[in-house]
C-alpha cells in the first residue's frame, strides 16, 4: 500500500487505512519486534551464563576504548609555539562561533610585535561544551585542536570542568611553529 510521492523518488506515502487488519492490529509486528529482542536477550544471557561479556559496551574505567576514530572530537588542546607560549592569538573566533558559549578569552598585548595579541585567560567550560568542533574550524592559526581521546573528563563539581590555559596546554602538549600568521604562498 505504498505510494510513490511525485518528485521524491526515495520517499513513499503509507496509507495505513488501506492496510489489512493484521497490520492495523499490530500484533504481528509486535511479535516480530519481541522476537528480535528476545533473540538478543537469550544470546546475551547465554554468554553471560557462560562467563562471557554479554554486551558490546565498554566497562569504564576497567576497560577503555582503544579504537577511537581518528575523526572523533574529544578533548581540546591548545597548541604551543616552541617557546611554550600558546599559538592562540586571542582573536575570539572560537568564542564567537561556539554555540554553547563555553569559551572565555581575555586578550593582552604580546611582547612580540609580529604576534601582537595573546590570551591572558583562555578557559573552556567543558561542562557546557557540546564537542561540535566549530572552534577548531574557526581557529585561524590552528591553535586549538581536539584530540580523539576524551580521557578523564570528570570532576566532582562543575567548576572543576572549567579548563584553563595551563590545563589545556599541558594535556598532550603539542608544539607547532608552522607559519600560518600572515600570508605565505611558499609555505
Amino acid at each position, binding site marked *: 500500500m505504498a505510494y510513490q510521492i511525485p518528485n521524491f523518488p526515495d520517499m513513499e506515502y503509507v496509507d495505513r487505512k488501506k492496510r489489512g487488519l493484521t497490520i*492495523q*492490529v*499490530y*500484533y504481528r509486528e*509486535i511479535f516480530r*519486534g*519481541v522476537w*528480535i*529482542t*528476545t533473540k*538478543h*536477550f537469550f544470546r*546475551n*544471557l547465554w554468554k*553471560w551464563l557462560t562467563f562471557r*561479556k*554479554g*554486551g*558490546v*559496551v565498554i*566497562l569504564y574505567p576497567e576497560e577503555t576504548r582503544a579504537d577511537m576514530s581518528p575523526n572523533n572530537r574529544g578533548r581540546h588542546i591548545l597548541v604551543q609555539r616552541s617557546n611554550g607560549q600558546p599559538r592562540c592569538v586571542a582573536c575570539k573566533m572560537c568564542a564567537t562561533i561556539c554555540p554553547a558559549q563555553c569559551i572565555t578569552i581575555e586578550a593582552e598585548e604580546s611582547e612580540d610585535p609580529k604576534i601582537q595579541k595573546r590570551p591572558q585567560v583562555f578557559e573552556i567550560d567543558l561542562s557546557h561544551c557540546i564537542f561540535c568542533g566549530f572552534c577548531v574550524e574557526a581557529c585561524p592559526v590552528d591553535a586549538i585542536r581536539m584530540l580523539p581521546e576524551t580521557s578523564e573528563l570528570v570532576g566532582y563539581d562543575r567548576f572543576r570542568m572549567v579548563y584553563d590555559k595551563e590545563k589545556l596546554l599541558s594535556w598532550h602538549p603539542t608544539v607547532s611553529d608552522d607559519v600560518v600568521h600572515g600570508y605565505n604562498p611558499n609555505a
Partner: protein
Amino acid sequence: MEANFLGINMVNFWTYFILAGGIFVFMFMMGAVMSWSERKQSAVLQDRIGANRASIPLPFGKKFAMWGFINNLADAIKCLIKEDFKPKVYDKLMYNLAIFFAFIPAVLAVAVIPFAGIVKPAEFFNVSYLKWIPYLPEYFAKNLPDYSFKVQVADLNVGLLFIFAIGGISVFGAILAGWSSNNKFSMMGALRAASQMISYEVSMGLSLLGLIFIFQTVNVWDIVQAQNELAWGWLPKWGVFMQPLAMFIFLAAAVAENKRMPFDLPEAESEIISGYFTEYSGFKMLLFMFAEFIEIVFVAIMLTTFFFGGYTVPYMAADGFYFPWGTYVHLSHATVVILQLISFHVKVFFFAWLLQQARWSLPRFRYDQLMQLGWRILLPLAIANLIITVIIVALGGL
C-alpha cells in the same frame, strides 16, 4: 483447636493473616524484581551490561553486587534521603492522597487471586522430604487434623468484579496526581491517563465477559478450578484455548490499563516530561514507579489466572496426575501444592518477562492511534467475540 476470640476464628485469622502478609511481601518483592529487570533485562536485550556498579564491599576485595540488584537498594535509599521537592502552589491533600490511589489498588486486587489449591496442613507434612521440619507436623496432626484452607486471601463470589472495581480506582491516582500538581504537563498526562484507562477498561471487561459466560461464574476460585477440567477429554479448559481472541484483547487492554509501553502516553517523556507525576520526587515518585511495576505483575497474574489455568498444572488433580491416555501418577499432597505454587509462579514470571520484553521492543503509539485501537478495533472485536461466545454457549456448546 477451635480458638475463638470475640467470635473470630483465631485459626482462620492467623492463617489468612500470614497468607495476606506473604502475598503482600511477594507483591513487593516482585515490584523490586521488576524494577531490577527493567534495567537488567533491557540491558541484556540491548547488548548492554546494565546496572552493575552499586555493591556492598566484602572482605578480600570482593564486592557483592548481585548483578545490579544492589542498585535498586541504593536507589531506594537515595529516594528516601532525597529532597522532597514539591510544587510552589499545589493541593496538598490530593497531592499526597494520589500516591495511595495509585499504589493500593494494585496490591489490593491480588486478594482474590488463588496462588495454589486447597492446603491441608495435617497432611502436608507427611512426605519424606519434609521430615526435617520440627514441631509443626506434630502440632498440626495433633491440634488441627481436619483443617484445610485455600491459598487465596479472599474467596469472594464476585472476585472478578472485585478486581475490576479495585482496578477502576487506580485511574483516580493518575487524575489526582496530575490535577493537584498544578502543572500543565501533569494535567495533560492525567487527562491522557484517564481517557486511556477508561477506554481500555471497556475492552478489558468485555474480553473477560466471554470467560464468565463459559465458566458460568465470577468467582475466581471457580474460574481457576474450571480451567483444570478437560475439553474433549484431552485439552485443559484454559481461557487461552476457550477464548484465544479474548486473550489478545485482554493482553493489549491490560498493558494499556497499566500505562506501559507501547501505551505509555500519559508519561511520554518527549512530549510531557513525566506526565501526571512530573511534580513528584524522591520517595513519592518511587511509589508511583513501584505501583506501576506491581501492576505489571498483577497483569501477569491476571493473565495466568484467567487464561492460563492459574495455579493448576494440566491433568493434575489433588492426588496426582490423570493423563488423558489413562495413566495415573500418584502424588502426595505436599508435592501437589508445591507443584501448583511452582506452576503459578512460573507462569507469572513468564508473563512478567514477556511484558518487559514487549516494553523494550516496541515504540510508542501516537495518541490518536491509541484511541483508534481502543475504540475502533479492540472494542468491536471484543463485542464480536462476546456475541459469538454467547451464541455458542446458548446453543449448548462447550
